[in-house]
């Protein structure tokens, strides 16, 4: 066991994978000599050589396309997109190709590519360094979508993703790289040093895809979150002193519907929370599925806590970010609904 932040955990996962499996290669803008703008690939090129860890031209579509070709040739590429906001030039190769190769070839060809990318706001990134595009991939059948909320899960999920056999969009909430973040930018930053999930085995282990984790048990209300919002949710329910159950999805597609439904049937109340924009976001899927499955147990309408339906504005980052206050308002609404307002 070692203490790692999320960057180190992701780095450690790649070391573990590459050590064990010569078919694993790492590619992306500035990932080689430099070790990546967030330093997730530090030391990999030195250790595994340039044929397995290399910089690419600035062409996200080319990166994913080349990774597909390599995967078809038996390699297991891990491609880094420098920011999730810059994945769209690769969208066609992901949606039309990566996601469909197994299907359209009747299973004869597969392209097990993992596309890693930092996402989310809270680092003064403005509208093009803050996006959370998970819903844009979750709607696309054929790719799996993962978003860890802590170093332990990050490493275990990345190892599982590379081994999965399916293409995986691996989203890393960059505000969590160096420490958990409860949504309050005015508090001094904390590190992963003292966090239980900052303990990460040096060696090999897996966190399975498609399995959520109950990070806090409770019976009054269920909060379904992932990524940064897991920490915001924990802080908000602690502040309120309520007996909430908090679920960290970890995998966005496939969803661990079973865990969610079991919880909501128990609590009868639910808030879903993410940083991405609201309209047609993943929260909508969660809410729709939960009301389908738990309708007769629900005591109040499910609330969504999300970023607004605007780009992520630099100067109003903290007004945009769905922090504890927004979450508490929603929790209060589901705990003490007013049928007159939403009748």
């Amino acid at each position: 066991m070692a203490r790692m932040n999320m960057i180190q955990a992701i780095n450690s996962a790649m070391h573990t994978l590459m050590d064990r499996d010569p078919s694993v290669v790492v590619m992306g803008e500035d990932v080689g000599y430099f070790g990546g703008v967030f330093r997730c690939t530090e030391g990999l090129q030195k250790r595994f050589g340039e044929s397995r860890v290399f910089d690419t031209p600035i062409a996200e579509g080319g990166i994913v396309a080349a990774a597909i070709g390599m995967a078809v040739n038996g390699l297991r590429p891990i491609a880094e997109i420098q920011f999730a906001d810059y994945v769209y030039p690769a969208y066609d190769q992901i949606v039309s190709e990566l996601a469909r190769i197994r299907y359209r070839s009747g299973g004869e060809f597969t392209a097990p590519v993992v596309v890693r990318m930092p996402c989310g706001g809270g680092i003064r990134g403005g509208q093009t360094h803050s996006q959370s595009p998970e819903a844009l991939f979750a709607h696309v059948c054929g790719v799996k979508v993962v978003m860890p909320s802590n170093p332990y899960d990050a490493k275990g999920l990345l190892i599982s993703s590379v081994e999965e056999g399916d293409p995986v969009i691996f989203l890393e909430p960059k505000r969590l790289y160096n420490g958990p973040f409860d949504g309050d930018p005015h508090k001094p930053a904390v590190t992963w040093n003292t966090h239980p999930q900052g303990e990460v085995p040096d060696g090999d282990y897996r966190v399975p895809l498609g399995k959520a984790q109950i990070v806090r048990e409770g019976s009054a209300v269920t909060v379904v979150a992932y990524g940064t919002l897991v920490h915001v949710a924990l802080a908000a329910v602690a502040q309120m002193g309520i007996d909430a159950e908090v679920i960290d999805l970890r995998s966005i597609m496939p969803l661990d519907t079973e865990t969610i439904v079991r919880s909501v049937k128990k609590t009868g109340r639910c808030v879903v929370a993410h940083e991405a924009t609201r309209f047609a976001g993943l929260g909508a899927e969660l809410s729709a599925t939960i009301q389908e499955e738990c309708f007769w147990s629900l005591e109040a309408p499910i609330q969504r806590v999300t970023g607004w339906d605007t780009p992520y504005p630099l100067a109003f980052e903290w007004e945009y970010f769905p922090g504890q206050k927004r979450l508490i308002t929603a929790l209060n609404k589901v705990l003490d609904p007013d049928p007159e307002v939403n009748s």
Partner: protein
Amino acid sequence: MNNKPQLHVPHPPARPGEKPDFSYVALSPAGAVPRPSPGANARDIESLAVELVRVLDDGHRALGEWNPALAPDTLREGLRIMVLTRVYDERMLKAQRQGRISFYMKSTGEEAVAVAAGMALDPKDMLFPSYRVQGLYLLRGVGMVDLMCQLLSNTRDMCKGRQLPVMYHSAAKRLFSISGNLATQVPQAVGWAMGSSIKGETSLAATWTGEGSSAEADVHYAMVFASSYRAPAIINIVNNQWAISTFQGMAGGQGPSFAARALGFGLPGIRVDGNDFPAVYAVTRWAAERARQGLGATVIELVTYRAAAHSTSDDPSRYRPKDEEASWPLGDPIDRLKKHLVALGEWSDEKHQALVTECEEHVTRSWEEACSYGTLNEGPRLDPLTMFDDVYHDMPEHLRRQREQLAKEKA
């Protein structure tokens, strides 16, 4: 110089009712273009991108440095596959007209860009085809019945009923799955080739795309990556003059040729007579040698003519002169190879007729067998519940439930 600016919009030389005019197609005499060593410096051989490598002359002789001097058996094998492709195309068009299959795309008039190129490669080389190089499948020995079953979306459809007709694949024969999305395969081929280098292997990747599709980003990505990583790849741009109703000049713009796009990337670009079997063979073999020497990719523009409609959904008489094909200066690849073999004393009209008949019989037999496994409308049918397979390697819960729901719906 215009007084008042206006938008320049490229025009084909002739629309319906106008006189076909292929004077824009720059020709070089057969045998005229010198063949550099495959190890040549790309900058020393830039003229290959604007000249036209041709081997067969009007007298049906093979001339010049590019003449691959293929054994008659090889030439006959090439002819056989091209004839088989054409017969197959004809019969499948008929099948579509008869309503047995829903859609088809012919490669008539451009069979050599697949067959000659494919023959020049090693069976271990990986091919990333477009939808109009069916000759590659026949060449590599994918069973004709298998191809037909794909067209029929029947119980033996390799695509399990999921893909439009002609979107074949064969992992065993190293033919990648064809995509409906144009040009996406081109940078994938380069990635495959990079993978070959990473693994320390000598197999190369070859890919085909249309001249219209060369405007897509993917072709740019392919050239950038091929150039930077010296990937052992061959990028074939099939310039068959048309992209549905849009003539080649819309993607070509003011450029000297499609092959010339390679030069800015330091890749050799070679413009070749795509209807000249030995020329296509020779140029492909040159590029393969170069790639295997570790010198990276070559871009080949294969100049040919789409003699057929774009697809069975298309009616070219709406946008090009009906008789345009007759004016096409590079003739027909089958006709030219046949005459070359005859000129060599290695073939005859009778043998050719026998070959055609043999191919027709093969196609007919295959078609009967294929139809016995079901057609879109009749006979045995794939289980619709298989539609939920292969979305992922495993079936997630939500798909399992949808599958159950469909089972109930069908019950």
